[in-house]
Every structure is written in structure tokens, then in C-alpha cells.
């Protein structure tokens, strides 16, 4: 894939200069995605557990890939999920969606359909009302990329 089609993410100048193999660009995207996650968590490194991300192993059509998140939580005061961030580390931009829950949600679970430009990791990060953060990650293999190209 030619580099010009990718929006240069505002990472460090070093990465911006890289125009070589795809592997280098993939790294830049993973870095950008990590930065994005840190911004959401306020610098806290997420632990694993509590949140489950469900995504297909192989997506036949990158234009519409079903993904679900579910966070174990009573969803009452004292045990509440505030939001869940969904990102993808190989898309032109990492952000996909942010779900906001309330006690009236009943459960902290949501399903949507997303676009994946190519095989990559989809990551879900849950931020609890008490400030703790959890994440889950799944690799999705994409046969036909979904970015209109």
C-alpha cells in the first residue's frame, strides 16, 4: 500500500520520516494507538480482565465487521463502568468509537459494526467510575479491506 494514502499521524518526527517497509508503518500505528489509549486512561496502563472484546477471527468484508464489548460490572453505584474505548491499530486513524454507560444501562455491553482497512488488532479499553482501567485485544484477519480502496 503506498504511503501517500495513509494520513501521517502526529507521532514523533522520527516515525514521520519513515517511508520504508510496511512493517515500519505498522509500528507507527501501534505507537499512535497506544498514545491514544493513554490519553483515554489518563496515563494509566490498563490491566487485563473484566472486559471481553468479541470480534471475528477472520472478517470477510472489512467494511462491516461486528464487534462486541462486555464488562463485568453490577452497574450500580460503587461498581460502575463509565466508558469503553474502541480502537484499531492498523486503520488510518486508531479511534473507532467510545461507549458511555450509566446505571440505567443495566449491563456494560454494546455491539456495533466497524471498518477495518487490513488485518490488525482491535482493542477495547474500559474505564471504571473508580478510575481503574482494563483492556482486551483481538486480532482480526481481513481479506477485503474496508476503507473504500
Amino acid at each position, binding site marked *: 500500500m503506498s504511503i501517500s494514502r495513509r494520513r501521517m499521524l502526529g507521532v514523533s518526527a522520527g516515525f514521520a520520516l519513515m517511508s520504508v517497509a510496511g512493517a515500519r508503518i505498522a509500528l507507527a500505528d501501534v505507537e499512535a494507538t497506544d498514545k491514544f489509549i493513554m490519553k483515554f486512561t489518563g496515563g494509566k496502563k490498563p490491566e487485563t480482565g473484566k472486559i471481553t472484546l468479541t470480534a471475528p477471527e477472520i472478517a470477510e468484508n472489512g467494511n462491516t465487521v461486528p464487534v462486541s464489548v462486555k464488562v463485568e460490572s453490577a452497574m450500580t453505584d460503587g461498581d460502575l463502568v463509565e466508558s469503553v474505548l474502541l480502537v484499531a491499530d492498523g486503520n488510518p486513524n486508531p479511534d473507532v468509537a467510545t461507549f*458511555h454507560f450509566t446505571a440505567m444501562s443495566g449491563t456494560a455491553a454494546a455491539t456495533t459494526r466497524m471498518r477495518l482497512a487490513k488485518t490488525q488488532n482491535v482493542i477495547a479499553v474500559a474505564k471504571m467510575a473508580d478510575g481503574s482501567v482494563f483492556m482486551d485485544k483481538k486480532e482480526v484477519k481481513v481479506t477485503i479491506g474496508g476503507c473504500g480502496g
Partner: protein
Amino acid sequence: MAAKSKPRIKVPKEAKAGEVISLKTLISHEMESGQRKDKDGNVIPRKIINKFACEFNGAPVFSCDIDPAISANPYFEFTAKVSESGTFKFTWTDDDGSVYTDEHEITVN
């Protein structure tokens, strides 16, 4: 030339107090990501639904900040725990400022 954005909602008409119900929401919308180019090589500008919100009797239940990586005809499935009868209100906000809404009533026993 823009097709009217049509919402489709699936929500139960009845529920027991305290029951967790499932809601399925869909709205027709191209969700132009801003990544595509037209045949002359010009970028087709981004135009997406950037926010979806669900309220029950005026109180927030669930909402979603939406980015261009969400597929066309954005679909969201989520849950709600209702303790009284009332009205669900659904709101979708377009980049261009348009707001689409839909409402569904539910009877809670």
C-alpha cells in the same frame, strides 16, 4: 442528493420492573469517512453521524461518540434497565448539524 436518514429501532414494548432489556438501533447513513477519493483524485469530505444517544424519561441510558471507522448504516446494540413505564428517545447527530430522532414507549409492569 442526500437520502433521508431513516432510523430503525427494535425495543420491547413491555418489560418487568428491574428487567434488563436489549435494544437494537440502526440508522441509514453513508458514513463518508473522509478516506475515499473521487475519480479525479479529490478527497471526498468526511460526513458521518458522530454521536448517538439514548435516554429514558429524560435520563441518559447509553451514548456513543462515533468515529469514521464505524460502518455505514451505524448499528448499536446495548441494554437498559427500566423500573417504570415511559419513553425511550434516540438521537443521532450528523457532522453537518442535522439531528435525527426516534421515540419508543415501553410499558413496565
